[in-house]
């Protein structure tokens, strides 16, 4: 509880008591988090470049839920709230939660606090897939997912599969091998991406827009396709939280504690990659959420995955909702820039506080 106490600037004992009380009631924690998330969602739906009275926004939402509310607003306002803002904000919730959970999963699986959802080449694979889609002169749109999204998804999963196939065996311990292979494959794919971008000419802007990540293309239909994947994957990971806990002391220790390491490694890797790929297909490469959210949660409640996974989902969702709100109000700058602005300073602080060599 050291980091959290210092951050909160409370007397240590008091903070410890408070944290203990919270930790003992995970339900309460998650409940508080969800309440905060709902508030963030409402705030994000109420704000935008067109001013709509908060009372009207609330009315529109309530009416959409079926409550008998008098329609005292213009149809344009209703369209803006229900068809523009609400799907976008909900997409931010889903993507933010997914990225945070994937980040927590990879951090636990690879036992590396610097891991994020893209550590195994996912980002480069998705980017390359998207760039190829832009190059290919084919227009195919299914369920409002274009070739870009489909190839980004495929690229992300493909990259992980390659990393997995190449990274096992070899001289290094399995985890180290995965990490290093992820880095190597990622670099290779990034080179391929650079080449593709060079060849892309006028379409460069589209690739860049994807690389920087964004939620402008959100729609109800896209959400309906992506949400089950992300939410389902998140729940499946949460159900395996004790495996992540078991891995805290290492793979061998985990085996001694009853974890079927070989099987769980594949399962967690697969689930984490699936969630990441779905998130990337929907909204491009949004960074820092998957890295930062789990760490903030750990500062508050410790590293127990049983708490970290669901709370990361909630916190990651809230983070992305607010970051997207900031991006919208600042003139539609890419949301990846906002998350970087928030996340990078935090990351620096994290690095400075990290122990070098965490031997037990």
């Amino acid at each position, binding site marked *: 509880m050291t980091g959290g106490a210092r951050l909160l600037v409370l007397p240590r004992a008091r903070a410890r008591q408070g944290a203990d009380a919270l930790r003992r009631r995970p339900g309460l924690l998650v409940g508080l988090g969800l309440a905060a998330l709902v508030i963030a969602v409402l705030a994000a739906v109420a704000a935008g470049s067109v001013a709509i009275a908060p009372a009207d926004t609330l009315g529109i939402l309530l009416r959409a839920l079926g409550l008998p509310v008098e329609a005292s607003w213009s149809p344009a306002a209703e369209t803006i709230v229900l068809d*523009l803002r609400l799907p976008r904000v909900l997409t931010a919730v889903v993507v933010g939660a997914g990225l945070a959970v994937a980040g927590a999963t990879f951090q636990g699986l690879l036992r590396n606090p610097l891991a994020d959802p893209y550590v195994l080449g996912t980002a480069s694979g998705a980017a390359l897939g998207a760039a190829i889609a832009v190059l290919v002169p084919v227009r195919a*749109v299914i369920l409002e997912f274009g070739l870009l999204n489909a190839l980004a998804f495929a690229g992300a999963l493909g990259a992980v599969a390659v990393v997995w196939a190449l990274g096992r065996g070899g001289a290094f311990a399995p985890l180290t091998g995965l990490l290093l292979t992820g880095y190597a494959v990622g670099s290779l794919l990034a080179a391929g991406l650079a080449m593709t971008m060079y060849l892309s000419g006028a379409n460069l802007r589209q690739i860049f827009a994807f690389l920087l990540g964004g939620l402008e293309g959100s729609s109800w239909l896209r959400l309906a396709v992506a949400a089950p994947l992300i939410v389902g994957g998140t729940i499946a990971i949460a159900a395996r939280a004790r495996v992540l806990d078991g891995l805290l002391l290492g793979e061998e220790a985990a085996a001694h504690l009853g974890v079927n390491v070989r099987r769980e490694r594949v399962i967690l890797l697969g689930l984490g990659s699936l969630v990441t790929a779905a998130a990337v297909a929907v909204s491009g490469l949004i960074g820092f959420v998957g890295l930062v959210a789990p760490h903030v949660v750990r500062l508050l409640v410790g590293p127990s995955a049983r708490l970290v996974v669901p709370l990361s989902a909630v916190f990651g969702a809230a983070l992305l909702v607010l970051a997207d709100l900031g991006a919208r109000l600042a003139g539609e700058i890419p949301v990846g820039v906002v998350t970087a602005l928030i996340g990078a300073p935090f990351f620096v602080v994290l690095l400075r506080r990290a122990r070098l060599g965490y031997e037990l």
Partner: protein
Amino acid sequence: MLSRAPRRRVAGLSPFIVALAVFLAACAGSGTPAPSGPAPTGSIAPVATGTPTAPPEPEPTPEIPVEPVYPVTVTDDDGTDVTIPAEPQKIVSLTPATTEILFALGADDRVVGRTDADDYPAEVAAIPVVVTSTKIDIEKIVALGADLVFAGGNNFTSPDAIAKLRQFGIPVVVTYAPDVEGVLEDIELVGTAAGAPGPATELADAMRAEIDAIAATLGPGDRARPRVFYEIDATKEIFGPADDSFLAEMISLAGGEPITTGSPTVFSIPLERLIAADPEVIVLEDAAYGVTPEQVAARPGWDAITAVRSKAVRPVNGVVVTRPGPRLVEGLRALALAIDPEAPLPPAAP
């Protein structure tokens, strides 16, 4: 890397445009179409039905070739069929060229949204901006109650935004002119969609006639034409016209043999290739950013080029040359004069 959809920028008024505008306004007056019908198909109703500015009093008009007819279905430059149910009263233009066209066709009183790059004519300042270089404000477009949107093809306007607007039932017409004839077709496309088909055809025909006249005198033919390099930018790499591009065609019509990059998708040209091609004239579009012929002459290695040695390096206003709008003829003339200040241009239309 530059994204080279033709860029539209402003130059000064030309008497031709003023005359044409007056002429068209007169035509538009008597050609007022039926009042706009019920809300367009889709979920959008106009936010506030402001009365359209009163049309000018009907003037005695010459014969108008085409009456605007609604509903009308046009095929835009992306190949999409777009149906416009009634005369649009709230037009949003997402490209500077289309804004100029709408003004030229007299439909500017029905334009409610523009881009921040629109700079001509001066009256555009009064129209709200809905598009910046980073953002298409879909909320604003919806809130304005837009009933027709003109977007830019070839990724000038994000395809996602176009799809989204169409999702809301707003007709979106995409314009993209890969060559000069495409510009004229776009003018007619905009006119038909926006409810000024007659003026559009007139404008396009007039422009075509002028362009043909210029091409007859200066275009490809028997006379010797100088090799021309059109410099877009040379701060790091040298950017110039790609093969078979709009710019290459303009240069050719304006009396030069265009030196191109060697590929239709590459926009940069290595210095060796440029020196080997040895342009006799260099036209500086980047004069707008302060590049002078003296600076060009001082560049290492450039003094081997004929154009530099014979001091045939001249600035040109790139906006009118590249913006695919009503001032294209003005651009063609400016380009011709930059290539050869003594060029025997036919007189400008009144």
